[in-house]
């Protein structure tokens, strides 16, 4: 089960090394590399927000992209329709996503397990359909473009550094939430909702709070993504992004704080480099998923943990 997040010196060292490695690759690898890294970091934030729901709240959402899309559109529509300056509109992306999380969440937490997953999927599809078909307001499938300089006009490398900083702040905030009493409640409801209820928690309310928090962070990721592209499209709320994030969490391995980040790194790098070797990336992805589910059900994070224990970096639990 999901444990509280404790940072040992070895983990701090690994984290520091990872940050330095990413920033180094960003500065040395050229603009193309920086773009890939920025996308990777944004998706890491998105997947981590889903992981918050899945690993700690035990709520498997199949509609998380709704909040990614709402983040992107909440931000862009405030620029194009309300005429706010870009910097001020940034706030409204995550807010729109959190509001969406409140509405959809209130509905979805009435259900559990597979029904929950299906209803979240339906909520996301509705969001997608509205964004896709409401031409007058959202521009439909042509999306919204040309309202700002992509990346605020920052260079590719500087923008990637900015996303790294945002990801770091968000992860720190998530870690604080998970280690707080609220995080405890989320985890206890996730592990056994009946026992949590017997202990005096209101499971649905706790789940709703978790849902809104996850939607908020997904909204930050969506807003950042819209900034990085300088545009917003209905696809941001589509099933594709949800599945990508789910796969990242599964590749990373459930029940770990880092599975979203680890999964995002592996997934985006695979997706970026695989086309050099094969025309059939989706086929390869399907087979990788099959192998992971059958042979490595606890994902890559479990392998990393085992390695660390074998090398004596961490004591046995």
């Amino acid at each position, binding site marked *: 089960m999901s444990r509280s997040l404790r940072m040992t010196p070895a983990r701090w060292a690994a984290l520091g090394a990872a940050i330095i490695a990413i920033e180094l690759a960003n500065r040395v690898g050229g603009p193309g590399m920086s773009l890939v890294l920025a996308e990777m970091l944004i998706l890491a934030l998105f997947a981590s927000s889903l992981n918050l729901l899945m690993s700690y709240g035990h709520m*498997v959402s199949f509609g998380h992209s709704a909040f990614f899309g709402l983040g992107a559109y909440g931000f862009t529509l405030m620029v194009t329709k309300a005429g706010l300056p870009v910097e001020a509109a940034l706030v409204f992306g995550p807010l729109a996503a959190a509001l969406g999380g409140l509405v959809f969440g209130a509905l979805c937490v009435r259900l*559990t397990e597979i*029904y929950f*997953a299906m*209803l979240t999927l339906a909520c996301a599809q*509705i969001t997608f359909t509205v964004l896709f*078909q409401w031409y007058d307001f959202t521009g439909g499938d042509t999306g919204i473009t040309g309202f700002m300089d992509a990346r605020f006009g920052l260079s590719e490398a500087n923008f990637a550094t900015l996303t790294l900083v945002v990801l770091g702040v968000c992860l720190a905030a998530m870690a604080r939430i998970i280690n707080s009493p609220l995080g405890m409640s989320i985890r206890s409801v996730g592990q056994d909702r009946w026992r949590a209820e017997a202990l005096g928690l209101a499971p649905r309310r706790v789940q709703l709070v978790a849902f809104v928090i996850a939607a908020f962070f997904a909204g930050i990721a969506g807003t950042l993504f819209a900034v990085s592209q300088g545009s917003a499209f209905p696809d941001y709320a589509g099933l594709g992004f949800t599945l990508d994030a789910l796969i990242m969490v599964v590749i990373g391995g459930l029940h770990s704080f880092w599975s979203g980040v680890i999964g995002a790194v592996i997934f985006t790098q695979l997706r970026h480099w695989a086309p050099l070797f094969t025309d059939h990336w989706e*086929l390869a992805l399907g087979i990788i998923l099959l192998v992971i*589910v059958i042979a490595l*059900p606890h994902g890559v994070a479990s392998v990393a943990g085992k390695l660390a224990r074998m090398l004596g970096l961490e004591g046995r639990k």
Partner: protein
Amino acid sequence: MIWVQLVNGLMEGMMLFLIASGLTLIFGVSRIVNFAHGSLYMLGAFLTYALVPLVGPGTVAGFFAAVLLAGVATAAIGTAFEVLALRRIYGSDPLMQLIITVALVFIIRDVVRWIWGANSVTVPAPDALMGAFVIGGNYYPVFPFVIFGAGLVVVLVMIGIIRFTRAGIILRAGTDDRGMAALLGINERLIFTGVFAAGSFLAGIAGGMAAPYGDVNYLLDTTVIVSAFIVCVIGGLGNLYGALAGAMLVGITKAMGVLYFPRLSMVLIFLIMAVVLIARSLGRQGGPAR
């Protein structure tokens, strides 16, 4: 116009039911939600596209023979997946069971694009069914009626098998109480495989029969699976007759929506589903699946 759309809605509802019934039967026995069920539908449509010119282009018998063959081929692929992959993870984390079917979605989608390309293809309806007949000044195309009828036959046969044959009794026993059925000496694995094969077959023939009705392309899998999920949620997962009611409701709402509120029909369906879910969760904790 209303009546013409009603016929279209009934036909679409019937196809939705064929898909949703497979989904719901599989869930009832093995507690697995097959995310790849829309992919099997799509595969059935593409296989029909490939088989019609070989079996008998233009004739009614040729078309339905192609649909049946496509269904059998889809069932074979579904069975292979069940035996090779799904079987290994029964009883593990439900998320992993979902993800393994998502893996099948990617695999089928890529293979379909590999073989048939990324563009839409059209499957011609048999010549004899191309016409329309006139009642009260309205032109009714023949094809939706025939497909509705064919779907009805399939559904009646299916219900007959479930109610009156030994296989159906075993299926119902497995759905009611898996452990007890196993105790009575019924081979659980055989039920799982059999139900998955039957569900794949239903999805395959639904895809084949509906193929002439619209564009067939590799994006069909997700649109279909979302509709089928909505049907299952409205009807209650594992509940065959609920799925029938849900499928008709969704099919007719979609068809009527095209007439009166083309942009809102999906939103309306979603609202219906939300109302059903809330009404149900007031009484029980979110329905039979808990």
